[in-house]
């Protein structure tokens, strides 16, 4: 009795209707049904952080929630961070600080950092390190990512968001 479910998701301020199996995770639904492939899937068991998205403004693992459960939530993916084709201050800071190499972890790092800076506009390096402790990067050694998030915090405090 695992019937197909018709669901409606609010992603990046757009409403999307789709038909899914209950077992489809939000991450797979974003990528396969909504064609939002910015959300990456690494481990699929909540360890690597690549699939992090925002749900009602807070960071969650999109591999550990089923799409059907995300109905009624306001989901923001990495595609929702840039406004009108302009990189957000956080994305610009990642660019300027060389905070990515292969880019696989970047969507999860950005969404995680976005949630951090919304909650804590002036984090210390230690707080940034703690915030991204659930996001694995195999290229950068993290230093440049922490630099970028500290830099982004500064940009967000100075300029318009």
């Amino acid at each position, binding site marked *: 009795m*695992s019937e197909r*479910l018709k669901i409606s998701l609010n992603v990046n301020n757009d409403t999307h209707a789709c038909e899914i199996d209950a*077992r489809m995770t939000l991450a797979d639904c974003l990528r396969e049904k909504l064609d939002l492939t910015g959300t990456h899937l690494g481990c699929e068991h909540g360890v690597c*952080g690549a699939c992090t998205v925002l749900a009602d403004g*807070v960071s*969650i693992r999109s591999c*550990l929630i089923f799409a059907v459960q995300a109905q009624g939530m306001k989901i923001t993916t990495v595609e929702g961070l840039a406004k009108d084709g302009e990189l957000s201050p956080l994305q610009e800071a990642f660019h300027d600080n060389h905070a990515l190499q292969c880019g696989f972890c970047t969507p999860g790092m950005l969404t995680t950092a976005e949630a951090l800076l919304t909650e804590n506009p002036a984090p210390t390096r230690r707080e940034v390190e703690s915030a991204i402790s659930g996001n694995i990067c195999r290229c950068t050694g993290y230093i440049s990512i922490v630099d970028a998030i500290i830099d982004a915090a500064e940009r967000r405090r100075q300029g318009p968001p």
Partner: protein
Amino acid sequence: MKPPKFSYLAPESVKNAIAMKQELGENARYIAGGQSLVPMMNFRVAAPSALIDLNGLTELSKVSLSSDSALNIGALTRTRRLENDPKITGAHPLLAAAARHIAHAQIRNRGTIGGSIAHADPAAELPGIVLACDAEIELQGPRGFRTVHAVDFFESVFTTALEEGELLLNIKFPRWPKDRKWGFQEVSRREGDYALVGIAAWFDLDATSSISACGLSAIGAADTPVRLTKSEAALLGSVPSLPLFEKAAAEVTADIDPFDDVHASAIYRCEVAAALAIRTLTEAWERDT
């Protein structure tokens, strides 16, 4: 890495959820935050025929102080709220401090107190806290409501006193005196990993500055969280001091029964547990409450 097929149900009340579970039988599972269950499903270690999703049951996420100053935390309360809600951090600072050690923000935003307790991972923080603090776990099932004391709740690895069809409603923490001393320390290989070993401790001092009441528990040190009763006995009635804490820590290994795994040997866990007991008690003692 995809879970097997299941059917999905979203009950509108606890009563409704329990009726669904009765109808669907033991292959159906309740799901709360899903931060342990979904990984197990993705690995196909768990393959429930149906998920009964408790997330819509707002009646399960209430936090309140009762007239006897006990702190009631609804089972669906997210872990993140345990660390951030002033109503909780003020009423139970040890719970809030331990919650900050759980996994990562993304997990804590979704995981729930009831889910962690029902899952009963022996290395998980919240089961250790409810045990150290003599919390009561309130359950509802096909045969009605009942209360289980934390000391009777954890039976073995991932095994609890929950009977078929029962779900957690509420966790009731006894009154927390304002000047209670407390500490929580754990050792894990990386931030957010499960603890190799962790120790929670609290004590109250009487008018002669002697320890009049205390609670200590260890996580990651046996097949359940463990109450360190012999260490507690060593502390009771004495004035806190480093030698006293060392004496209490020497009793830790009498109560724990850790295991060898790829991360650490049992002997190492014993040594860490004793060292952490001293650190945790010292942290508690030095705390300005």
